Each structure stands twice: as C-alpha cells, then as structure tokens.
C-alpha cells in the first residue's frame, strides 16, 4: 500500500517537473525572441550601412552639405542638411510643446477640479493615438495655409509647419508624464509652501516644478524621441527639399523623410542603397541616445523620491 502511493507520487512529481520545465521554456523563448529580433534589426542596420563607407568617407558623410546620390557626374552623400533639418524641426517642436505641455500638466495636477482632470487626461492620452498620416494631412490642409497667410510665403509646407505638427504629437507624452510627476510630488511640500503664505502659483513654480524637474525633463526627452523618429507627418508637411535649410519658413527634409522617399526607388546593393541604411543607423543612434538619457534621468528621479 505504502509502496504504491510512493510510486504514484513519484510519477506525478516527474510530470509536474516536466510541465514546469516546459512553461519555463515557453516564457524564456518568448523573452529571448524579442531580444533576438531587436539585435537582428540592429545587426542588419550596421552590416548594410558599412559598405556605404567603401565609397564615401565618414567625414564627407557626416559633414557634407550636399545630398545627391543620383547625380550625372559625381554622387555626393552629405547628410548635414538632413541632420540640421531634423534638429530644427525637433527643437522647434520642443520649443512649442514644452511650455504648453508643462503648463497643461501643472494645470491638470494643481488647478483643475478632479472632474475636469478625469475628463481631460484620457482625452489628451487618446491624442497620442491619432495616426501620424492624419496629422500630416491636417498640416497640409490646415496649418500650411494658415502659415502661408500669416508669413506671406508661397506655401506653408516648411520647417515651422513640421514643428507645429510634431509639437502636437509630442504633447500627449509630455503632458501625461509631467502630470504624473507633479501629482506624485509629496503633498507635504505643497502644504508647507502654502502655510508660509505662498500662493498656489508660487508653489507650482518655485516648489513643485523644481522638485519634479527630472521627471519633467525625462518627459520632454521622451517627447523629443518621438518627434525625431516621426516620418509620415514631416514627410507630408515640410516640403522635403534636400538642401541646407535657410530658415523655419523654408522647406526642409529630415533624415526620416529621406529614407522614406528614396528607399522605394533605389537600386539594390548600390552605394546609395547602403547610404540610406547608414542614415537609418544615424537616426537609430540619435533616438537611442535620447531615450537612454531620459531613462537615466527618470531612474535617478525615482531613486530620489524613494
């Protein structure tokens, strides 16, 4: 009797262990596959970008001011105009989005009634889900004509238009994360400040925003990461002239637009083809650095608040 029950036990023990192992394997596989895919993309970018530098030297690539890979006489692969365009559009977007976003976050966290906050915050977060092509469309039919009218330009498809649209796209991220940061600031700071005779406004400016600064900076960096990588909107709204940008009212072409425009028509395994992958690599490095920085800042902030 006893031996029977032991035998039985042993059997279930083995099957249980097997099951455990299978489940473990399943989750390990799931985890590892996404890492492998990501590494694969990265490897593809690097190995397809490297051949470009057999013909183009790195200095010329980074600092050349002419991008003309299909010229009659001599092809040129300078990405500086695109880098400048990308940063112009992105910084322009941040210039609009940061004051607006942080202001909205402060309003939602400190001034708005709970009811207003309950309604407004989800709506702002839904804004993040609007497809970029729709925003680009608005850029063409709405923002463009308005800019053209105000500044008297030929058409409104320029860096400013791109900045405005990217600001709209970065706003949900900036507002949402900044608002979380401000809401999580201990109420004791708020109370102490009010008890000293500070107004609500002074409390927000002098205590809450400085206390949540790292969170707010991280929010802005994440918003920036989104703006840099955005393709469709800028492709539609910025005019896409591959020359050195002259001003915010001139047409610009960002890194992302160039890839999107040219990759569909380029001949395989040519220097031009490899150069486009090199563009992608540059873009990847930039967004990686931005995200890494925001991650470090956010982490530091979490530690301080603990």
């Amino acid at each position, binding site marked *: 009797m006893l031996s029977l029950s032991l035998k039985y036990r042993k059997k279930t023990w083995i099957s249980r262990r097997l099951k455990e192992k299978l489940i473990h394997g399943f989750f390990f596989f799931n985890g590892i596959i996404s890492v492998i895919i990501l590494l694969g993309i990265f490897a593809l970018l690097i190995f397809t970008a490297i051949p470009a530098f057999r013909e183009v030297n790195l200095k010329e690539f980074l600092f050349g001011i002419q991008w003309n890979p299909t010229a009659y006489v001599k092809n040129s692969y300078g990405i500086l105009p695109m880098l400048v365009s990308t940063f112009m559009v992105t910084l322009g977007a941040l210039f609009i989005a940061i004051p607006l976003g942080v202001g909205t976050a402060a309003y939602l966290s400190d001034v708005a009634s709970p009811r207003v906050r309950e309604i407004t915050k989800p709506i702002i977060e839904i804004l993040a889900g609007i497809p970029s092509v729709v925003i680009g469309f608005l850029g063409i039919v709405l923002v463009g004509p308005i800019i053209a009218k105000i500044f008297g330009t030929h058409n409104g498809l320029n860096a400013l238009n791109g900045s405005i649209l990217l600001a709209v796209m970065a706003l949900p991220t900036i507002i949402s994360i900044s608002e979380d940061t401000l809401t999580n600031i201990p109420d*004791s*700071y708020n*109370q*102490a400040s*009010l*008890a*000293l*005779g500070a107004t609500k406004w002074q409390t927000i400016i002098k205590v809450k925003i*400085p206390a949540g600064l790292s969170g707010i900076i991280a929010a802005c960096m994440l918003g920036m990461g989104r703006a840099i990588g955005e393709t469709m909107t800028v492709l539609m709204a910025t005019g896409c002239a591959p020359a050195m940008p002259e001003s915010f009212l001139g047409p610009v072409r960002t890194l992302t637009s160039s890839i999107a425009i040219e990759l569909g028509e380029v001949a395989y395994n040519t220097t031009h083809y490899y150069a486009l992958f090199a563009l992608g690599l540059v873009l990847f490095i930039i967004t990686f650095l931005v995200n890494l920085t925001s991650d470090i800042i956010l982490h530091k902030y979490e530690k301080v608040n603990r």
Partner: protein
Amino acid sequence: MSVLTKHGIKMEQKPLNHTGKMADNKNSNIKIFIKNFNFYYGASQALKNISLDIRENTVVGIIGPSGCGKSTFLRCFNRMNDTIVGVRYQGDILIDGNNIFDKELDIVDLRRNVGMVFQKSNPFPKSIFENVAYGLRVNGIKDKEYLTHKVEKSLKDAALWDEVKDRLANSAFDLSGGQQQRLCIARALAVEPEILLLDEPASALDPIATAKVEELIHELKKKYTIVIVTHNMQQAARISDYTAFFMMGELIEYDITSKIFTKPSKKTTEDYITGRFG
C-alpha cells in the same frame, strides 16, 4: 473682557506654568477668539460647537485621543483645511479681533501671520539656506543682505545655527530628523508670524531631539503665541500654559495646564489623563 465668562473659562484664575510659578502672562490680551465653531468634512462633523480663547504669548496644548479633531482644529487657524475638497464651517474664529473667515481677508496674509510646523518634518528639496529663505522670497524679498541676515536670525531662533552654519548650501535632506524639524520651525519663523501652530512637532523625533524642540518652544513663547497639538500628555504638561482636552470633536475641558493635570473638573478628562482610555 466680559466675553470670557460667557464661555465658561475661568480667566480670573491666575495661570500657572509648568514650574508651578505664576505665569507672567496674566495681563496678556486675547490673541485668538473662537466662538461656537463647527467644522464638517462633507456630512460628518469633525468639530462640535467649540468656544475658547487663546491669550497672547502663551502656549496652549491640545490633547485628546486620535481622531478627536485636534489637528483639524489647529488647521482652522491658518485655514489649511481650505485645501481639502468638501469642507464646511460655521461660527467664528477671530485673530486680533478680525474674523479669519471674512471674505475680504487675504488668505495669504493670514498664513504669513500664522505659521505652521507639521507633524512630519517636510523641508523642501532645496538647500538649507533656500528652505529658510523661501517664505521671504515668496513675499517678494530679493535683497541678498537682508535674506542672509534673516536666515541666520531664524536659524539662531530655532537653535539650529551652530549645527548648520558651515553647510548652508547643503541639501536639507542631509540633516537628521530632529534638525529637519527645527529647520521647519526656522522656516516658519523667518516670515515673522505672530502665532505658531505646531502639529505634533516631536512625534517622529527621538527623546533628545524632542527635548531640544520643547526647550525651543519654551523660548519662543516670549515672542509668539503658540498652539501645539500633542499626543504626548507629559509633553503637554511640560510645555503648555493652558491645555484643551478634545474628544470626538468636542471640547471637554479647557483650563490652566496644572489644573487639568492635577484636578480636572470632568470625569472624562481625568480618565484620559490617568490613562484609562486613549
């Protein structure tokens, strides 16, 4: 002072301080005058028909079991309860004869005049100097020399100067718990209030830090009117001139501290003080 007797407070008795000697404030004026005061959080009533008055340059201790409305009462004097949604009040609180619920009254001025120190020390995430200077800065003072002078004076008044004078630029979080609490007192003193509200200021401190804070309160009494909420009855007995005993939102007894602790007139007070409940 005919109003006094109406509230059943025996002002004709000369107040005694904790050493048993005559208190030196027998001629002082009424600083805070509270009459038929009711306070509600939504539907629940937290304070029921409170009437009492507080004399200038005295320390009034408020004792009572948890949830009896002590802190709520204290937070009425600088209207900190206004930050909570859904509170209501009836009745009057007069400071120097002015009703603090007057619509004309500027709440910012009120809070400058009535300083507050919280239960848990809550310095700002700024330097020691900036913590003390904050109240002055929000009042629009920019003069560097005056700020430096005022910060030094406030820290000295809070008996913290000697411990921090070499590291004013350091973060306030570098200080110990007791030092942080004295920093909060210095911060409150910097704006020169006339009344100081202390909400269990020593509840999170060790005995040595507590002794320092108590000594400080005794010193501050000369310049300020102090209302202190405390959980610790020995502390109330040691530092306050008058003691108010609250229970379930009602003021059970208010009298000279020595009398409350030796021969209270109400049975409930005696039971609480002798530790039969609470």
